[in-house]
């Protein structure tokens, strides 16, 4: 963090100078501030390696005497006696020591992701994608990866309470039955049920059954970051709520109108990231490389992959979209492009028009319905409908515009029309509802308030009844993905806290309260398979066709089917068939006027880590550096460098943001590429009742966000003079050296595919080492990471944390540079600070051939293995830290204190039993998931064969939604990784150091439109040197 105001003009001048850095991590790095130099030159930043925490004399003496007393005896600890506790009746399929994998699904924002969950003797420990699931094909996102930690969260509630008193389940049932009978006379007029977006066909049917009996009762679905605008836009264009589902594998040219479709926090990001990556891989035919235009305010993951990114206020995207539409010739649309974007509009329109049927326009969830409608019209005009975009029924059983429904609920509550309110799920309306509705106050006017959720959150606090809910890994349910595919959600363990699933809670309002979740889900599917096909595509548009396979009826066949569904993790044939929808006549007549552009704008976003706040108590997610800003443990007001200059603010200065009469003090973070005169604040922080991890972290953006402008609106900002310490890892582990990331554009790539090699600082001949060469007779492991397809989404980082028992260290330790992540994703910029190109570079251990770490360890705690790994031996490590001092990539992590929680029982259950849980004073680092290699080697040897290519999949590789990471045996020339290493784009970082890393990178290529100006790509640095020379200037 810079202590002084940065001189942006000097930074700009430095970047324009040919000798300036081509790729940079932060403005501080370009300015070469003293703080940045600290990060660069030191192994760990100041304070990381020193014990500077204030220690009193008394504490000091205590510590010293304790360490003296322990110094002599630590080597003599007698191993504690341990128990073996076998089963009484061992389940047939369970083999102790062998994990089992169960297929299930996790829903977020009304969209399911198909998962395989690893279970060790009944403990789910790791989430993997389900490779068979038709929608997501094995990809997962960071939320799914981190969800296993929420399961074991010690702050989950464990008792049914009424006004804080523990009650039995019967008591709750009686209360609900009482409310129900009181409501019977008024046909349920005083009853309301609030849920999250329900994509479970069974739960929807259950609620609809209740509504059928009590027709005046109401069901409100509520997501704080609702997809209302998308729904309303579809209705505007087509007259019905259809879900546009995109096929990026067929799209040559993509225009994103503020749509962050690659991001995990947006619906179907996993699927889209994979599909998009398939056109950016440059494997065989470089002409298949797609082109992406992004118009957006806040630099996003998608914007980072753009070939042309046009920064503009979120409110200007409307005018921009209409200008493109007008240029394309969409009837009834006219409009002038925002100033300065005219050239882009013309070029984009031309490019789109040249790719009829293979282009795609995607509108963002935050954009008003009109932009969605205009995007639909453009896709229609371009003949993309049915090609790159298909229209499907919505994944939620009953599509609605949630904002309006919630508004009505608040009005009803205030008018005293609601007597009983049941709130289910993590939507947390008291905390998340628009500030101007004062939901909490209105709620107090309801006589009977019941809440069911994982945590005793802000909403639970305002209710009389709280029922602990089941985590999705503890319950029976079903869930629909965005393409319609239904998965049966099956539990991996009994509810740990005696929780009740939503099915069971809702059943208390029916006549059959005793049914378990299992009964309810089975009954639904038994009834609906009997009634056959139509069910699988319930309620919604008429144009939906029946699934291919008609369902059988008898109980035996049902049982067979049911088992198949559970095994496969999805119901075959349940995907929606595309419906043909046509633009409604006169759709453009109903279009609102172009969005007004305020002088200064505030943009609200879902957070990349805590989503809408529901994951606030998840330490893995809180500690995750956000993809673009690399901020952790906080949200901030993101501003562009130009805006920061005008407001005279630097990172960490507090801004008073005034929006719609409400104010909020938010610390500033300068985000290169952010639109001018706009700030972005992520929601989900500032929770007061999140739990031990999430309470009091960040600022509560919901207090600022109102109902009139849920996504963006006018705001005023003023510097308060106060400051706040933000922690960002953007300069942590900065590496000295040139051309760490390498890129070029498609034209230059075609002319010279081996461009990355010419960017080598200097060329070294192959055998240049004094050490004897390692010989690998068996396997020789290696990894290749494609910078072209990596979106920086962080799924790999969480997967690594989950697989390798990596602890959470907290904000203070993080700020001192003591983070423990084995895998980090470095973000680099290139070009103009007001609109830079962004590159992401995942950094696991490079597993060097001539490893600098191995040579300096005095106790041989890090040694070379016969398969090329740099083994890290915890039980030998004495913590000298020489190895990390000597690591040019700074990928080694040291346990400065005891970070791992050795006390909390529930967290112990999450640990991977195949990986050592490290203590303090130990160095650790990426092992290439050696536990997975060993397991595969043993399996292969037991079957008298070699390990097959693709059999060892590292945790990061398995999690990557865009398949950017490839791991395998370099000794096998047919392996995927060996082929990638032979790719001309493949390069080693810092090759001039001759450490010969096993992790290499495939250089990035962008595909800018030749008709448009873009950041000039600077030529290789090698030109400056004699290529054959081994003389070093250092």
């Amino acid at each position, binding site marked *: 963090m810079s202590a002084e105001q940065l001189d942006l003009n000097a930074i700009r001048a430095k970047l324009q100078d040919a000798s300036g850095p081509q790729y940079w991590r932060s403005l501080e790095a370009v300015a070469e501030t003293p703080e940045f130099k600290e990060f660069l030159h030191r192994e760990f930043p100041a304070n990381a390696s020193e014990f500077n925490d204030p220690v009193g004399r008394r504490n000091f003496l205590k510590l010293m005497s304790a360490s003296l007393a322990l110094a002599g005896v630590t080597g003599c600890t007698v191993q504690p*006696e341990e128990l073996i506790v*076998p*089963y*009484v*009746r061992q389940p047939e399929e369970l*083999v102790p020591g062998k994990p089992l994998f169960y297929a299930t699904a996790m829903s977020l924002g009304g969209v399911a992701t198909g998962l395989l969950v690893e279970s060790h003797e009944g403990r789910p420990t790791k989430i993997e994608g389900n490779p068979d699931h038709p929608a997501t094909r094995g990809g997962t996102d960071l939320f799914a990866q981190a969800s296993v930690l929420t399961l074991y969260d010690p702050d989950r509630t464990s008792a049914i309470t009424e006004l804080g008193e523990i009650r039995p389940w019967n008591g709750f049932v009686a209360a609900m039955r009482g409310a129900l009978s009181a409501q019977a006379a008024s046909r349920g007029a005083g009853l309301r049920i609030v849920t999250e977006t329900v994509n479970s066909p069974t739960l929807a049917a259950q609620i609809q059954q209740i509504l059928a009996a009590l027709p005046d009762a109401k069901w409100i679905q509520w997501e704080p970051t609702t997809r209302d605008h998308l729904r309303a836009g579809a209705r505007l264009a087509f007259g019905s709520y259809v879900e546009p589902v995109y096929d990026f594998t067929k799209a040559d040219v993509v225009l994103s109108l503020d749509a962050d479709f690659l991001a995990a926090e947006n619906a179907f990001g996993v699927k889209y990231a994979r599909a998009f990556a398939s056109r950016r891989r440059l494997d065989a035919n470089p002409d298949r490389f797609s082109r992406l235009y992004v118009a957006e305010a806040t630099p996003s993951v998608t914007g980072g992959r753009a070939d042309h990114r046009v920064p503009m206020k979120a409110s200007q995207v409307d005018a921009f979209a209409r200008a493109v539409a007008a240029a394309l010739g969409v009837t009834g649309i006219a409009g002038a492009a925002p100033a300065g974007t005219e050239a882009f509009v013309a070029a984009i329109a031309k490019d789109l028009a040249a790719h009829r049927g293979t282009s795609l326009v995607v509108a963002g969830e935050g954009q008003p319905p009109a932009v969605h409608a205009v995007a639909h019209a453009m896709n229609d005009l371009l003949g993309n409908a049915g090609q790159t975009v298909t229209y499907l029924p919505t994944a939620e059983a009953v599509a609605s515009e949630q904002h309006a429904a919630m508004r009505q609920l608040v009005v009803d509550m205030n008018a005293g029309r609601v007597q009983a309110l049941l709130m289910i799920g993590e939507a947390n309306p008291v905390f998340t509802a628009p500030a101007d509705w004062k939901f909490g106050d209105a709620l107090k006017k309801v006589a009977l308030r019941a809440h069911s959720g994982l945590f005793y959150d802000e909403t639970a606090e305002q209710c009389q009844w709280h029922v602990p809910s089941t985590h999705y890994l503890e319950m029976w349910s079903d869930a629909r993905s965005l393409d319609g595919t239904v998965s049966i959600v099956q539990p991996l363990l009994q509810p740990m806290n005696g929780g009740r699933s939503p099915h069971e809670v809702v059943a208390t309002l029916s006549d059959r309260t005793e049914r378990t979740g299992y009964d309810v889900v089975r009954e639904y599917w038994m009834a609906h398979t009997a009634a056959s096909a139509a069910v699988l595509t319930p309620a919604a548009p008429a144009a939906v066709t029946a699934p291919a396979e008609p369902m059988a009826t008898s109980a035996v066949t049902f049982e067979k089917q049911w088992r198949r569904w559970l095994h496969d993790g999805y119901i075959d044939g349940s995907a929606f068939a595309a419906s043909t929808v046509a633009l409604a006549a006169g759709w453009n007549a109903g279009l609102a006027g172009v969005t007004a552009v305020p002088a200064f704008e505030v943009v609200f976003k879902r957070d990349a880590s805590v989503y809408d706040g529901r994951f606030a108590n998840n330490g893995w997610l809180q500690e995750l550096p956000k993809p673009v800003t690399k901020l952790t443990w906080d949200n901030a007001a993101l501003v562009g460098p130009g805006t920061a200059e005008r407001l005279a603010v630097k990172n960490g200065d507090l801004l008073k943001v005034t929006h719609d009469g409400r104010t909020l003090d938010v610390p500033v973070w300068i985000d290169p590429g952010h639109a001018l005169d706009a700030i972005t604040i992520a929601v989900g922080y500032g929770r007061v009742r999140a739990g031990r991890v999430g309470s009091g972290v960040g600022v509560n953006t919901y207090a600022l966000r109102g109902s009139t402008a849920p996504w963006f609106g006018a705001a005023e900002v003023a510097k308060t003079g106060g400051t706040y310490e933000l922690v960002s890892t953007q300069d942590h582990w900065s590496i000295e050296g040139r051309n760490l990331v390498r890129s070029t554009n498609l034209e230059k790539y075609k002319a010279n595919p081996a461009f990355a090699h010419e960017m080598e600082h200097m060329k070294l001949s192959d055998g240049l080492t004094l050490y004897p060469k390692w010989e690998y007779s068996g396997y020789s492991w290696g990894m290749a990471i494609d910078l072209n397809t990596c979106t920086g989404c962080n799924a790999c980082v969480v997967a690594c944390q989950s697989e390798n028992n990596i602890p959470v260290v907290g904000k203070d330790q993080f700020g001192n540079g003591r983070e423990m992540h084995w895998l980090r994703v470095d973000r680099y910029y290139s070009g103009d600070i007001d609109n830079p190109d962004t590159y992401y570079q995942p950094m696991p251990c490079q597993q060097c051939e001539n490893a600098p770490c191995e040579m300096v360890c005095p106790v041989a705690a890090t040694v070379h293995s016969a398969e090329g*790994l740099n083994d890290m031996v915890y039980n030998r490590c004495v913590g000298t830290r020489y190895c990390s001092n000597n690591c040019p990539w700074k990928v080694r992590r040291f346990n400065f204190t005891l970070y791992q929680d050795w006390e909390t029982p529930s967290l112990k259950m999450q640990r991977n039993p195949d990986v050592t849980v490290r203590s303090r004073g130990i160095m650790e680092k990426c092992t290439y998931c050696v536990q997975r290699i060993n397991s595969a080697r043993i399996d292969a040897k037991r079957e*008298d064969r070699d390990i097959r290519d693709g059999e060892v999949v590292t945790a990061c590789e398995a999690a990557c939604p865009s398949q950017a990471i490839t791991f395998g045996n370099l000794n096998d020339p047919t392996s995927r990784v060996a082929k990638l290493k032979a790719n001309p784009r493949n390069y080693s970082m810092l090759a001039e150091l001759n450490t010969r890393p096993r992790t290499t990178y495939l250089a990035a290529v962008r595909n800018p439109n030749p008709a448009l100006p873009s950041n000039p790509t600077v030529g290789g640095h090698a030109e400056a040197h004699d290529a054959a020379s081994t003389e070093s200037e250092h």
Partner: protein
Amino acid sequence: MSQIFPKSSNIWSKASIVVVLGVVASLGAALPVLQRSDFVTTANKYKDQPVQFSHQHHVGGIGIDCRYCHTAVEVSSSAGIPPTKTCINCHSQIWSTSPYLEPVRASFRDDKPLKWWRVHDLPDFVYFNHSIHVKKGVGCETCHGRVDKMPLMRQQNSLQMEWCINCHRNPEKYVRPRSEVLTMGYQPAVAQEELGPQLVTEYKIQSLTNCSVCHR
């Protein structure tokens, strides 16, 4: 002024050098012995188990196959400790009223697992896999000793890394034919010097001594 030290102190100072050296040398000799002693390795120590289960009786006497109880030994890292159900398979018929077996019956009746003290306990940073050792021809007896002669279970070997590495470096000295893995009191039909290398080649046994093979 008289001298501070009398002349006799010379002998004391000389003796002290010898004594100090002697102490250091004897510590140097004693510590490695202590470190390898049963006291430290807990070898040959009996533990108070909930049931006085006799391998001597079940293996040596009745001749039950190891894998009847340790079912996972060929497929998993863990050999598996039998569930109570396995005991009850026989003991619902024989010795079904023996007071010694009451804890077993109680476990089965109340659905409460038996809790055994672990006899062979490797440190938590060591990852041993039974299945691959069995597959490569390492006999049960090689590590666990003559369990058919143990009325109560005890740890026969030190289970120290030195002991593991000894075999990992020289597998030919210890390997036996796969058919003899479960045999107690195995004697090689031909001399081990001849048979060992032959089996090492046949079973493709690698001398795996990389740290990450066992530590990760």
